[in-house]
């Protein structure tokens, strides 16, 4: 309001009236809420108590105790009455207390001498006698945030994220030397890989949403929502990146010839609305691939963060036994991600190794952080959110690659080119086959 002081009275009055018109519906809603809450039974009456619902979000096994994290995901307050292990009642403690209001959670601590590698089902019974159960396929000690465990996760992250991406980057010189048709093949192969990754992320988050989260969270809608928002906002960011790069096309050429990037002024962070209409298509063609590659790196980085969360959580929940074979599978599967990063850049100018490395780190590094967070502070909803952001990011990248290929191919169109079709199909097939290893 302070800023609007200079406005003429007239506009001020109108804005007040506008506010009033905006507020009236809220007053009506408020009155309705008061009416409904203060006249129980007059309007709607039901003698049926709503069914309780709780979800056991996580079960941790530690020294002679089993800890179950439970959340009230039902419509009303509930009281937890009993806990059991394998359907046998055991004494337990519940903290902070046995009465849970809607969407709050508690920890059920059961003293129990459990055996490594055996399945356990943990049951929680509410005061109306309903029993809820979660089965852990193989009990394993919960990872503790120790230096040793953190470095184990870091190592897993390195193998699953950084190394494969870097390995993929090594294809850079190879792709540079390809003829346009073969290059199209590899670009569309990249698009295929990414589409697979995106679908995979959506399916995986759907699986988590169904298995680990209560319907109260509407997690499946959340997946679609987050993916769409991620898609459109990254699309916006990438357009801005390209626009800015186009504007600064002059230093770009300097960079290309003299590598004098250090003497360059700091990039202007404030995005101007003035469009550079003079930017030629050719300049765009030089700049866009790198922007696309960077967007791919960011997208894959987001995806790998989600993947890291899922891996860490799987270790925490005892759902996977970590083995060299599993890690190898992930490594092979993710090598294709590096290929995806280098493919769009291959036909532009030469690119520095450090730049490639940075892109590799952006794409692969988040896996480590994801594994730490997933392994130590497992949260299914965070995993879903990041997998969906990653999916949206990946689809944005696919869109960018597609539109770039469309422009570079001129009037031939995308679907008339057999190498593009084959490459796309082949990319998905590679992912499917390497996915079998995991």
């Amino acid at each position, binding site marked *: 309001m302070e800023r609007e002081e200079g406005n003429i009275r007239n506009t001020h009055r109108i804005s007040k009236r506008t506010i009033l018109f905006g507020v009236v519906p809220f007053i009506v809603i408020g009155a309705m809420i008061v009416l409904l809450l203060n006249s129980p039974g007059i309007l709607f009456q039901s003698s049926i108590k709503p069914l309780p619902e709780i979800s056991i979000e996580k079960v941790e096994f530690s020294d002679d105790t089993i800890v179950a994290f439970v959340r009230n995901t039902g419509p009303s307050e509930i009281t*937890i009455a009993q806990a059991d292990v394998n359907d046998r009642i055991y004494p337990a403690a519940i903290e902070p207390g046995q009465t849970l209001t809607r969407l709050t959670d508690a*920890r059920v601590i059961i003293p129990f001498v459990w055996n490594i590698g055996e399945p356990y089902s943990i049951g929680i019974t509410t005061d109306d006698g309903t029993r809820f159960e979660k089965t852990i396929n193989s009990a394993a000690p919960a990872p503790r945030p120790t230096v040793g465990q953190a470095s184990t996760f870091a190592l897993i992250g390195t193998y699953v994220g950084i190394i494969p991406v870097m390995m993929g980057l090594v294809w850079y010189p190879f792709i540079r030397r390809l003829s346009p048709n073969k290059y199209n093949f590899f670009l569309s192969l990249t698009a295929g890989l990414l589409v697979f990754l995106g679908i995979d992320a959506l399916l995986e988050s759907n699986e988590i949403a169904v298995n680990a989260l209560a319907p109260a969270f509407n997690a499946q809608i959340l997946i679609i929502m987050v993916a769409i928002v991620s898609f459109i906002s990254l699309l916006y960011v990438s357009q801005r990146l390209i626009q800015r790069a186009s504007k600064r096309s002059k230093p770009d050429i300097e960079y290309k010839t003299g590598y004098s990037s250090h003497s360059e002024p700091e990039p202007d962070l404030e995005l101007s609305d003035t469009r550079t209409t003079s930017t030629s298509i050719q300049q765009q063609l030089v700049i866009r691939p790198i922007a696309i590659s960077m967007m791919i790196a960011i997208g894959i980085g987001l995806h790998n963060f989600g993947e890291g969360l899922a891996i860490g959580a799987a270790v925490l929940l005892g759902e996977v036994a970590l083995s060299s074979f599993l890690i190898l599978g992930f490594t092979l599967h993710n090598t294709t991600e590096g290929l995806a990063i280098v493919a769009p850049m291959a036909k532009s100018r030469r690119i520095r190794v450090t730049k490639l490395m940075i892109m590799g780190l952006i794409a692969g590094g988040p896996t480590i952080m994801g594994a730490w967070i997933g392994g130590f502070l497992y949260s299914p909803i965070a995993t879903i959110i990041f997998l969906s952001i990653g999916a949206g990011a990946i689809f944005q990248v696919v869109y960018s690659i597609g539109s770039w290929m469309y422009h570079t191919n001129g009037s031939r169109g995308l679907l008339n080119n057999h190498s593009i079709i084959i490459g796309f199909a082949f990319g998905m097939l590679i992912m499917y086959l390497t996915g079998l290893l995991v």
Partner: protein
Amino acid sequence: MRYPRVVVLVGVAISIMIFAISTMLYSRSSLSDQNSSKLDTVGGHTPGYPILQTTGDVLDPTSIVINPKTAVVEPMKYLREFNYGRISTSSNGTVIRDFTLIASDQQSKEVSPGVFYNVWTFNGTIPGPTIRAAEGDVIRITLINNGTKFHSIHFHGIHPSEMDGVFEGIAPGGKFTYEFTAEPFGVFPYHCHMQPLEEHITHGLYGVFIIDPKQGRPQADEMVMLMNGYDTDFDTENNFYTVNGIPYYYMHHPIEIEKNRLIRIYLLNMLEFDPLNNFHLHANMFDFYKTGTKLIPDEYTDIVTMNQAERGILEFSYKYPGKYMFHAHKTEFAEKGWTGLFLVKDGTTQSVNENLNVTSIRNITDYSTSDFNRSTNHVPTGGVK
């Protein structure tokens, strides 16, 4: 180095966001210790298991005493309570015993500490009252249906068809008197026989009916034990197993008996869903009289297995003082509530509490141990008075 700089910024922003979201989610699910002044102890019943101190609540039916005000039955009272009816004599000298049973199906009562279930009851309890008569007595049982569904009483034993409680149901608000001569002697179940039978039985409409032989049985400390279960989540599998209505009750309230004194248990299995159930006595053997219809024991054993409605009489005495377990030797049932203790005393009077291993008594304000000691005035009968 243009793009990397932007990207580093984006990267930093993303990681800050990631940490913010995850710590937010974590701190929401991590727990704040609110009232650390109150510390309860959990566990300690099982050797080798850790004992926990908690600031929260304790979930433990093996040590938490159910609130007698909301409990579906007081197992200690039920154990030695035999109902002989209002006695009158007919012109030809036959003893007539009048009983009244009120059926209801609308109450929600506690069947295990903290667990409430819609119970269907005779006279407000599961199991219903133990009805006792002597062979040859005329018994008249008036059923008043206070429920919302048709109910009936079907007695096992010998009686005319119209007294069988199967083809005529008593409508809600209705009333009917079953009348027949008690025969033969033995232990019998009674239960509602309306359809769906499974539903009426599993909700709790049953009890024990004892017919004593004319000459009576030897003097003993007599008790009745009914084995049942509750399927509180309606998945046709029992969530709780009990003897005398409340899981684990006799674990924190052991049944006091005297050393070398003859104990007689009238045992009935009314468990629904599970095909069989059993009774195992620790550190002892018992004479088993199947169905109680003979005066000579069928078996000398420490375990007896029964299907639904099977029953019998157990006779034993303990040679050594101490605590002895009795439970279903179907261990699943034992570990879901069908476990209890005898406390064998040396004859000297000694407070129960000294031997109790109750780690937590909660929600109880007006409960005193005298309540269950008082039941001795029902105890030592050698037959019908």
